[in-house]
C-alpha cells in the first residue's frame, strides 16, 4: 500500500488517557484527500502498524488528526503512540482508506459513539455540517473527564446536533440503545463505533433495521487491514468463464473473496475511484459504490473492490 512521510506536528491531551496526534506532510503541502470515516496506518515503530480513524475535518488538507486512548491492557500500539511519539518526529503513514464512509443517499445520519469510537464521528460531523445535512450524534462516555473533543461536541450540543451521555462506568445507567433505535426511520442511516460491549449492544439494537442502512466499524481490530465493515448483506458471485460460484459474506468485498479463492484480480485504491479492478459483469444487478463510472459504464462494468449486489447472484466475466 502507498505510504507517505509525515511528521508529528502537535500532540494534545484531550481527556484522561486520550491524546490527539496531528500529522503533517514531511515536505509541507497537501496530504492525500480523505472522506469522513477514513483511517490511516501509523507505522509507530518497526513491526508495529496500527490503524486510527481520522477525526479532523476532511476539508483540512494540510493535516491528519487521530485520537488515541492509551489502553494499558491492549496490544501495545496505543501505549507506544503515547510513549514514543514526540512532536517533530518523522513517521510513516499509510494513505487514508475508508471502510466506514457516509451513505450518499441518506436523508438523515444518526451517529452513535461509544468512548473513543467517537473519532470517525468527529470527521463525519464536520463533513455533514459542511454539507448542511441532517444528522445527530449520541456520544456515550464514562464521565466528563474521559470525554474527548468536549469543546467541539459542546458546540454540536448547543446547535442541537448532539447529546452526551455519561454512565459513570455502569452500562445500565448509560444510553438505552435499544430504545433509541427501536423505530427505524425510512431514509435514516445509523453509524456506530465503540468498545466491544457497546458494539454488541448496538448490533442487537439495529438488527431489525433495513439492510444497507446500518454502518459500523470496530476499533482495536487486528493489525491486518480491517475488512469492509459496512453493514452489508451477503450475496453470491458466479464466475461466467469457470462456472464457479462464490459466497460474498457481508463483511467482505467481492475482490477479497476472489483473492481468497485464488481468482486473481488487480486492485489498488479499494475504494472505487482508481478504476483498477474494472470488471465486466454478465448477469445480475450490482449495487455500485464507486465514484468514477457513469451510468453507461455501470450497465457493463463494476468495480469489484467496493460494489455489492442487488440481486442474490452477480455474474462476473471472469
Amino acid at each position: 500500500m502507498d505510504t507517505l512521510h509525515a511528521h508529528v506536528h502537535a500532540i494534545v491531551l484531550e481527556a484522561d488517557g486520550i491524546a490527539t496526534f496531528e500529522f503533517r506532510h514531511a515536505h509541507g503541502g497537501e496530504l492525500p484527500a480523505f472522506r469522513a470515516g477514513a483511517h490511516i496506518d501509523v507505522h509507530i515503530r518497526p513491526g508495529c502498524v496500527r490503524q486510527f480513524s481520522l477525526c479532523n475535518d476532511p476539508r483540512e488538507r494540510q493535516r491528519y488528526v487521530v485520537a488515541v486512548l492509551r489502553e494499558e491492557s491492549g496490544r501495545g500500539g496505543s501505549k507506544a503512540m503515547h510513549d514514543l511519539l514526540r512532536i517533530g518526529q518523522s513517521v510513516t503513514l499509510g494513505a487514508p482508506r475508508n471502510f466506514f464512509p457516509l451513505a450518499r443517499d441518506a436523508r438523515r445520519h444518526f451517529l452513535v459513539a461509544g468512548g473513543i469510537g467517537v473519532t470517525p464521528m468527529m470527521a463525519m460531523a464536520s463533513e455533514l455540517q459542511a454539507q448542511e445535512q441532517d444528522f445527530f450524534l449520541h456520544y456515550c462516555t464514562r464521565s466528563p473527564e474521559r470525554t474527548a473533543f468536549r469543546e467541539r461536541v459542546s458546540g454540536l450540543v448547543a446547535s442541537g446536533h448532539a447529546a452526551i451521555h455519561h454512565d459513570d462506568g455502569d452500562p445500565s445507567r448509560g444510553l438505552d440503545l435499544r430504545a433509541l433505535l427501536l423505530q427505524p426511520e425510512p431514509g435514516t442511516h445509523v453509524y456506530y463505533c465503540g468498545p466491544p460491549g457497546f458494539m454488541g449492544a448496538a448490533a442487537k439494537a439495529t438488527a431489525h433495521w433495513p439492510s444497507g442502512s446500518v454502518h459500523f466499524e470496530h476499533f482495536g481490530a487486528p493489525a491486518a487491514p480491517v475488512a469492509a465493515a459496512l453493514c452489508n448483506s451477503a450475496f453470491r458471485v458466479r464466475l461466467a468463464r469457470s462456472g464457479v460460484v462464490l459466497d460474498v459474506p457481508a463483511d467482505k468485498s467481492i475482490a477479497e473473496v476472489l483473492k481468497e479463492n485464488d481468482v486473481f484480480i488487480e486492485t489498488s485504491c479499494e475504494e472505487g475511484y482508481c478504476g483498477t479492478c474494472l470488471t465486466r459483469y454478465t448477469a445480475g444487478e450490482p449495487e455500485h459504490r464507486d465514484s468514477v463510472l457513469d451510468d453507461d459504464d455501470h450497465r457493463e462494468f463494476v468495480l469489484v473492490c467496493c460494489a455489492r449486489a442487488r440481486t442474490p447472484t452477480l455474474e462476473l466475466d471472469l
Partner: protein
Amino acid sequence: MDYKYVKDCWYVAGLSHEFKPSVLTKHLIAEQSLAIWRTAQGNVVAFDNRCCHKRFPISEGRFLDNGLLECAYHGLCYDSAGACVKIPAHPDGKIPPSARLRPYPVLEQDGLVWVWSGNPERASLFKPPPTPEIADPGWEAIDSGPMAIPANYLLLVENLLDITHFYPLHDGNIGDYANSEIPIELEEGEEGGYRFVRTRRRASNHKQPPYFIDWFHYEMVDREHTHCMVTPGLTRVELRVAPPGQLGTGKDHGYTLFHTHTPVDNGNHIWRWIVSCRADHMSKGDPTQSTAARIAGMFPEVVDQDRWALEKQQHMMEYPDNGYSELFLRSDKALRRARQILAQMQHDESKAAASRPLTRVNAPAAQVPAE
C-alpha cells in the same frame, strides 16, 4: 500496479526479412540474451546466447563451412538443434550429454518471427496472433525496424490504446482534437489463448483532417477505427474510411498498423511499427508515392513524440507514490482492462512457475515444433 512484463508470452524478435540464412542475431528479450538465426534449411531457431561451457555469447561466434556454429572462445561447435557436436579440448570426441544450447520456442508466421520468452511448458497454450497484412502480396507493408524505448512496455500499450493523446502530443502532424470526442466502444474476447481488449470508434459524416485526405483521399467519410491489444506483444490498429454510407463496399481506404512491443526488462522495450495498406493505393498529396510509403514517412516524427512522452513518464515512475493515484477518465477503460489482463497473465504464470521445479539451463527443454 506493478509495471512488470508478462514473461509467458510470444514476443516478436523481428520481421522475417531480418533473419538471413546463417547470420547470427542477438536479442535481449525479457531479461534474457538470445541468439537467433535462420538455418541453411530456412527455419528460424532461437537459443540462450550463452555457450554451455563458459557463458561466452555464441552470437559472437561464426558459422563454419559445414554449417556448424563455432563458439569464438573455446571452439565448441553446435548444430542447428543446439546440440554440441565438437569440443576441441576433447580430441577423443566425447561430448557430455549436457553440452547443448538451451532452445527457445520459436515460430515464424505471417512475416514475423515470434519467440516464447517464458516457461516452455506453457508455450502451447498460446498461439502467436495472425498478421496476414504483413505477408500478403496484395498489401504493402513497411516497418520501422527495432526502436529501443527506455520505458516499460505497458506505457506503450496504454499509449497505443489511447488516441485521446493525439492532441496535444501530436499537434502538427496527426494531432486531431476531434479524435478525442468520438465515442468509444469497448470489446473484449479471447483468441489464441490471449485475452484481447479492443476499442472501436465509429464516426459518420466525419470531416477528415488534412493528413487523412492526403493518405485516403475522401474529405467526408464514414470511418471505423479500432485499437486492439491483441496480446502483451502486439497491438493492432485498423482504420477504414469510405464515402458516407459506403464502408465495406469496396471503396474502403485505410491501413492496418501493427505495433510490436517486446520487453527487454521492466524499464525498456523494443517497439516496432509495421504499416500495411492495399498495395495499389496511392497518396492523394503525392500520387507518385504509395499510401503506405506516405504514412511511413510521417511516422518517425510521431514516434519521436511518443518516445519523448514515454521516457518522461517512465522517469516519473521512479518517485514513490506517496498517496498518488492516476486519475481515471472515461476514455481509460480499455487501458484499465489491458492492465487487468496483463496482471492476470502475470498471476497465472507465477502460479504455474511455483508448481514447477527450476529447469537447469542446459537441460533439454520442451520445444514447440517449428512450422
